[in-house]
């Protein structure tokens, strides 16, 4: 690889920023270059949220992804908003639990993950975003499960009570990809 840019997007409550944050910390463990850039709306109110993570084994110039390699869409409005920007030949990963529609975009690979259902299987619906992280790393091969889990623990330092459920989520997501 050289440089991979990913946009994570969804509703405010879906833990979208945390997904990117976990990924970024995982990449730090791996010793990759990275930039993590949360979109910073004028408003901190509900609505949508997104962040951009760039991982590279070379210097990263622009931290902004106007043409991301990957889009992780957690809800339909996010899919609508960003699908057009994905570079052709890129990847769109969808939250299948919430998005029943198909992307309008062609020329990209589409991969669906039923994150809520998978999370429910692990016993914690709130770990849906971690399921997506697990699926993301497995699908892209950017990080190992262990790296992602250590990233999660670093990102959530001080909130140890969530570690177990989140680890289960990441593992479940990765397993889903492997099984697919």
């Amino acid at each position: 690889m050289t440089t991979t840019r990913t946009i994570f997007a969804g509703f405010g409550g879906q833990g979208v920023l945390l997904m990117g944050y976990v990924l970024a910390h995982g990449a730090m463990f791996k010793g990759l270059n990275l930039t993590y850039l949360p979109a910073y709306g004028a408003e901190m109110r509900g609505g949508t949220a997104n962040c951009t993570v760039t991982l590279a084994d070379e210097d990263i110039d622009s931290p902004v992804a106007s043409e991301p390699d990957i889009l992780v869409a957690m809800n339909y409005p996010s899919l609508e908003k960003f699908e057009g920007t994905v570079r052709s030949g890129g990847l769109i990963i969808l939250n299948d639990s919430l998005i029943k529609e198909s992307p309008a975009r062609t020329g990209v690979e589409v991969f669906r993950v039923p994150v809520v259902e998978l999370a429910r299987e692990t016993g914690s619906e709130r770990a849906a975003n971690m399921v997506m992280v697990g699926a993301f790393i497995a699908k892209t091969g950017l990080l190992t499960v262990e790296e992602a889990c250590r990233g999660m623990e670093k990102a959530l330092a001080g909130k140890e009570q969530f570690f177990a459920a989140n680890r289960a989520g990441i593992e479940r997501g990765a397993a889903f990809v492997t099984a697919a």
Partner: protein
Amino acid sequence: MRGTQVVGETAVRAGCRYYFGYPITPQTELPEYLSARLPEVGGSFIQGESEVASASMVIGAAASGGRVMTSSSSPGISLKAEAISFMAGMEVPAVIANFMRGGPGLGNIAPSQADYFQSTRGGGHGDYRLLVLAPAGGQELADLTFAAFELADRYRNPVLLAADGLLGQMMEPVVLPDFVDLDELPEKSWAVSGCDGREPRSVYSYIADPVLLHRHNLHLQEKYELMAQNEVRWEEFRTDDAEIVVVAYGTASRIAKGAVNQLRASGRKVGLFRPVSLWPYPKAALRSLASRVRQVAVFEFSSGQMVEDVMLSVGERAEVYFHGVAGGIIPTPADVADYLDSVMNGDGRVGRRMDI
């Protein structure tokens, strides 16, 4: 750690014990960080009632010998203009971070470089200069923040960190500097502390007599001259055999670097000149580079401000071009490559030629 937190933690390590500021997006995470962090090291954090008040608190703590910081974003920096002029006139050291946002007026919170004039040409009144440092990434946020405290003390002058919200929000791997030992810092023989056992001291800028104020200004100018000699910082990237250089700083320079890489990949002889100190401007370095290239293309997140310093540096040694965006749209490396391509082709599609 986000950029704002890198600045905050580095400040603490650089010996900063006093922060006074007022919330404003996109930099509030910095005061938030320090509100929790400073008490841990025996320092003081105050959320002032306004930017105006905060800047004056900085004056008080700085005149008392502390290492002090404030930060804000564009409108808040404007409100600090009077106090910053006082700091310069009173010669008290302080570090001021501006995470610029779109303007003018309330504008928006997107990344911007439209406060370049304000930063380098004294937003406040009178003949003064700030040392202005413009980081372009996480590590440099740390390095320059650390340097800012040292330089502020060395020159008894306020130092401005010129950043933007993107740098403030972004996370990159960073190695933080070691903690400064406050007891090892040179004593500030001019700072107030109560006059027990010595003559009283005053720290002030009011000098009623024109002859004395003139003299004070000459002294300041000498100091600025010294700063101009010693504190110029810049980076050159792939300029060795370049026929055209793009000049950009901060976040814009990263995009420009991407453009340089793209163009180099297709064999174009393009380089990047990145000012790190905006004042003093790396005039001599740019001038000597300009003598070797055919074209100098400026790229800013503004409608054209730094370009004046480029023109003053380049003169007629090379053709100068400008292209900028204001308002927070962030162009891609491809956009900038397109601009450079247009300049090289001379087709006038993107950017404009500056005449001098």
